[in-house]
């Protein structure tokens, strides 16, 4: 009987930490296959390649916690990445160019926030339209060609290595992680985000300025997405409009996979990091095992649909239990 109870408890923990378990399971599977997965080169590569998506995911987490969705981050990422390169190619200093790119993010975030909060529109469809619009803008600026960067210092921002081992990109990712984690956990802004995500009306009546706060989450998310775009351009040393097609959907799914719910009010940045790691490890592991790319696409789709279904199912059970 006692054993049964502990088993039940373990099962409960397991269903809560499904993303973490998925990562562990994949790591164990890779342990039994003779591949180059467990080499420091590959592990750094894994971190490096998922860093940009993780940066985006940390911003999205704030929006999701506050009960919104942002599907325009792919567009923001691409546009800001192109803006930074265009400005630098016109002999504008790096830092001003980066600030301008972040400003682009802030403007888009403000529009998103204004439309969803003050005009009470559905955030996911508005931001979907915004993403479409921004993709068009990016293609128009670049004429759908990748534009190379002429400033040699720019690529060092992401590609340089600290102590010749840790890529700068990973360090930027960790800094964003720590800042947003601090904001969500240890500031009144963060706590209020959880409050409005948990119950919008209650938060409103307890004196939180819900509208301004929710709008701020959209601005923050877009600025972080713009930073991700700058890092992407720096990593590739060029600006291209072909990325970002599915980024927004994958990142949002990754965040939900980690345990931040669409309904808002629960979740956090560490969970999102693990959620994105699921996709990173899955892709890297399948590459290492030499699985055909079409099968990889299907696996990714099944993981997305499956985990979102589990997330909804958990909420259904809770609804029925009440």
């Amino acid at each position: 009987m006692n054993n049964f109870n502990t088993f039940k408890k373990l099962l409960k923990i397991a269903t809560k930490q499904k993303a973490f378990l998925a990562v562990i399971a994949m790591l164990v599977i890779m342990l039994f296959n003779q591949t180059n997965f467990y080499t420091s080169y590959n592990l750094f590569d894994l971190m490096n390649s998922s860093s940009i998506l993780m940066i985006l995911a940390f911003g999205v987490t704030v929006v999701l916690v506050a009960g919104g969705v942002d599907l325009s981050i792919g567009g923001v990422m691409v546009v800001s990445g192109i803006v930074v390169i265009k400005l630098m190619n016109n002999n504008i200093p790096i830092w001003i160019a980066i600030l301008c790119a972040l400003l682009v993010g802030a403007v888009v975030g403000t529009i998103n926030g204004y439309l969803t909060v003050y005009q009470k529109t559905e955030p996911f469809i508005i931001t979907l339209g915004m993403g479409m619009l921004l993709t068009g803008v990016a293609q128009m600026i670049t004429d759908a060609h990748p534009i190379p960067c002429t400033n040699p210092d720019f690529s060092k921002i992401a590609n340089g290595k600290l102590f010749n081992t840790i890529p700068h990109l990973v360090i930027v990712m960790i800094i964003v992680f720590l800042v947003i984690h601090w904001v969500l956990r240890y500031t009144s802004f963060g706590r209020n985000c959880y409050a409005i995500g948990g119950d919008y009306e209650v938060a409103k009546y307890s004196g939180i300025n819900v509208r301004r706060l929710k709008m701020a989450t959209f601005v923050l998310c877009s600025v972080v997405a713009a930073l991700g775009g700058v890092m992407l351009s720096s990593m590739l040393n060029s600006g291209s409009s072909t990325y970002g097609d599915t980024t927004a959907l994958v990142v949002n799914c990754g965040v939900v996979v980690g345990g931040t719910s669409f309904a808002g009010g629960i979740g956090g940045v560490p969970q999102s990091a693990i959620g994105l790691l699921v996709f990173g490890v899955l892709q890297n592991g399948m590459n290492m095992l030499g699985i055909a790319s079409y099968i990889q696409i299907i696996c990714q789709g099944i993981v997305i649909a499956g985990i979102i279904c589990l997330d909804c199912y958990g909420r259904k059970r809770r609804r029925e239990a009440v």
Partner: protein
Amino acid sequence: MSEQLNGKKIIQIIFSEYLVLVGIAMLVLVTAILEPKFLSPQNLNNVMRQFGPLIMVALGMTFVIIGGFIDLSVAGMLSLIAVVTISLIEPLGQVPALLIGLCLGAFCGYLNSVLVVISGAMTQAEALFITYGMSVVYGGLALIFSGGSTKQMSGIKADTSLFKEIGSGNIGILSVSFVMFLGILVLLYVFQNKTFMGRAICLTGGNKTAAKLAGIPINRSIAFIYTISGFMTALGAIVLFSRVTTASPVIGKGYETNAILAVVVGGTTLVGGKGSVLRTVLGTLLVILMSNCLNLLGVSVYMQYIMKGAILILAIWLDNRKQL
């Protein structure tokens, strides 16, 4: 009622309810003045043929949105069905291939509905991500099935007269795909307004909890919603690859956003419960005319993305203002 409908009132109704008509009229007027080729029979015939695939997908999407959900899987599904159907023409003959394509569409749609019902997704955002995952799966299946290559209809040795007829045939002055559309529009209009299931879908979209308490079988109506969407997507796929005579495994890319755009621009609200297939016809007409006009006027294709995004945002914003 009729004596109240003076001219001012009609204009008011058009501006508040059918803004899309004003948009279409302006587009036609401006383009006709700037580019006389727009009104040539050849171009109008072209518009009619471009209309075919999108209207099928959009009509299916109308029911999904009226039911309070959303279906992003049409992109992957369209590619999968187009690739499968065109590959089956040679080994099985054209009628079985057509039927298998339609059944596959209905089955994929039903699969979506099973996932949505089992997981108990209640909001559009949840349905959006589930169907996005399925879209990736269907797209991957299309890639596997075709081996990543584009299938040509001209390379098929068997008889393809049926598909040629769908793609480029005429009945009188109308194209075959347009006649198909008219028939289906009548069917769907009757289904929506005169059958139990059609009304059940509207009620499901209006308020799911209330519908459930009132004894509406909402699980069955969700199954209907997605199965119709899948079936219509299959029709759209068949019309599309018949017209362009090739089927690539990424042929459906962009159809999901275009269909949502057409439905929303037509005036079906995203909140669910309200809307009509007739509105979708107007919305689709606007989307198709817009790309035709911009092409004729020589506007860059990238500008069209921007305009579509802007129109989507504008349509939802205006619709929301009306409800406030």
